């Protein structure tokens, strides 16, 4: 199957739309170290796209390129039909790309509710003066956004901790709150950097369910990095495999599973 050019229908019958984001010949270097070497792939609307690879393959660097944190020396990033000029991370966020982090990056001093509300900052436009007055425009905006946030809090089943300071939460819940914060932005593209790292089987199952539900309910396009192969193969529609900064495989889970280069990268090959 090679339907990369346009729309396609997944194995479970979901209709996948056109290209949302396309990476064209991305090369990223840190001094003499080449983190990403000439990689191209695309992400279609509504699909769950996984990026996998052994440690140090450049997966997180790729996510950082997408979210504007790193600027590649060569190559182009196309987002929703136009070439993206070099942007600051907050500008990328304003375009509708949200993400979570490998190591949780929540705002520890704030409550769960406030953390999730920060996810909506890109939607809140009232200025300093109307905020200072509060009554009227600022309050109306706050309440409207609070309603959206409460929907997400309900969706992710974290109602009971909404007023708890984030610092007091256990790891699994923190991961979920971080997902909530990213979802609150109503992103066009959601990037998840190892959403299941350090979780037990039960937590992984919960998180997998949430990711599938998010994709199903909101139609959110998701790109995720994950090490748990079982999870990746079950969740994702298409998989990019990276190794030492190069792309060694791209396709459906089944195609990738049977790709000799991928098997070699994971299991090692005899050098003789």
């Amino acid at each position, binding site marked *: 199957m090679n339907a990369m050019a346009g729309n396609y229908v997944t194995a479970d019958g979901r209709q996948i739309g056109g290209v949302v984001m396309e990476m064209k010949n991305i090369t990223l270097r840190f001094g003499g170290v080449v983190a990403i070497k000439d990689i191209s792939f695309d992400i279609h609307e509504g699909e769950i796209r996984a990026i996998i690879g052994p440690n140090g393959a450049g997966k997180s660097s790729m996510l950082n390129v997408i979210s504007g944190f790193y600027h590649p020396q060569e190559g182009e990033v196309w987002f929703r039909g136009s070439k993206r000029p070099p942007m600051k*991370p907050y500008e990328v*966020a304003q375009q509708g790309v949200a993400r979570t982090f490998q190591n949780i*990056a929540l*705002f*520890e001093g*704030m409550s769960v509710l406030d953390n999730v509300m920060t*996810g909506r900052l890109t939607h809140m436009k009232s200025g300093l003066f109307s905020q200072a007055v509060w009554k009227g425009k600022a309050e109306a905006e706050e*309440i409207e956004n609070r309603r959206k946030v*409460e929907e997400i809090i309900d969706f992710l089943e974290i109602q009971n901790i909404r007023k708890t300071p984030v610092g007091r939460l256990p790891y699994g819940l923190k991961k979920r709150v971080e997902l909530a914060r990213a979802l609150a932005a109503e992103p066009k593209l959601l990037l998840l950097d190892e959403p299941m790292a350090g979780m037990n089987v039960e937590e992984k199952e919960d998180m997998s369910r949430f990711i599938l539900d998010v994709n199903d309910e909101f139609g959110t396009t998701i790109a995720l990095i994950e090490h748990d192969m079982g999870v990746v193969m079950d969740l994702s529609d298409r998989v990019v495999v990276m190794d030492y900064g190069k792309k060694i495989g791209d396709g459906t889970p089944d195609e990738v599973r049977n790709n000799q280069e991928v098997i070699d990268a994971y299991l090692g090959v005899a050098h003789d």
Partner: protein
Amino acid sequence: MFYREAGDFSTTYAEDSQTFPIKFDRYRYYLVLVVAFGIIPFLINDYWANAVFVPFLIYAIAAIGLNILTGYCGQVSLGTGAFMAVGAYACYKLMTGFPDIPIAIHILISGGITAAVVTLFGLPSLRIKGFYLAVATLAAQFFLVWLFNKVPWFYNYSASGQISAPERSMFGIIFTGPNTEAWAKYLICLVFVTFAAIVARNLTRGSVGRSWMAIRDMDIAAEIIGVNPLKAKLTAFAVSGFFVGIAGALFFSVYLGAAEVGESFGIDKSFLVLFMIIIGGLGSIFGSFAGAAFMVLLPVFLKNVFVGWLGWPTDLAAHLQFIVSGGLIVVFLIMEPHGLAQLWRLAKEKLRIWPFPH
């Protein structure tokens, strides 16, 4: 036992996000306002105004200002004293240049001018963080004090190099100058402190405040979720400068009456306000008040104890006062690093379930 949220249901998001969600708290707040506006002005005399209330209220405004910058946005500033001086000198130039405009307007404009100056000195914060930023603001402290000493235009070429507040009145009431009544001094400070607290609270509970706190807690993550760090940091500097400038203008025009920049707005002022917010509680409006009260009242209290009750000589009392208040600050920081505001929160937690243990 009155301090309960049981039976106190929020049915709208507006109710849920109000400043005092618990009924008892709300009524206590109204009571404080009634006492502050309706009763104290009739009882106050010169001693209570000059020794306690006026400095407390003015430092509370300065502490709110610094707390927005340091407590909410995480940017350390050691230039508060000099920024207060900007407010004071702006107010002096405005008072002498435009005598017909009401003093309250001058004070607000002084706040605006200070906001602009502080924003300018906040620009390095985009590149440097933490201790290095503190040192950059320290440079602002020394530079501004030097500037106000060096350029005679700022003190209207007066021979002493001092600035002194001329008499100005609003609605037939004198608010500045030597003939000001105690209650008038108190009232003008009270109005500004109320204004500052309400504005600060409104800003910190909305999207602006969240972007500040996001920058404080994790600036990289804040940027990734869409906070423009330039805008967030500079608005924090501007709002902080506005309040600190108002505090400086009041400190000079209402409290001191006459000021010399090195003496009244030196580095010790910067540290005093910083101590206030650390002891009061970083990132808390209530903490700003508590810290200001602690730092203003403690010396007065100790002096009364040593000289008034024990009858010790004043010089001994003055030295002991430094030792005791310094020691108390150290003890306090070890016992409760999150400040008086945290103690207050814990007390409220306990009160909620009192008299039951759980």
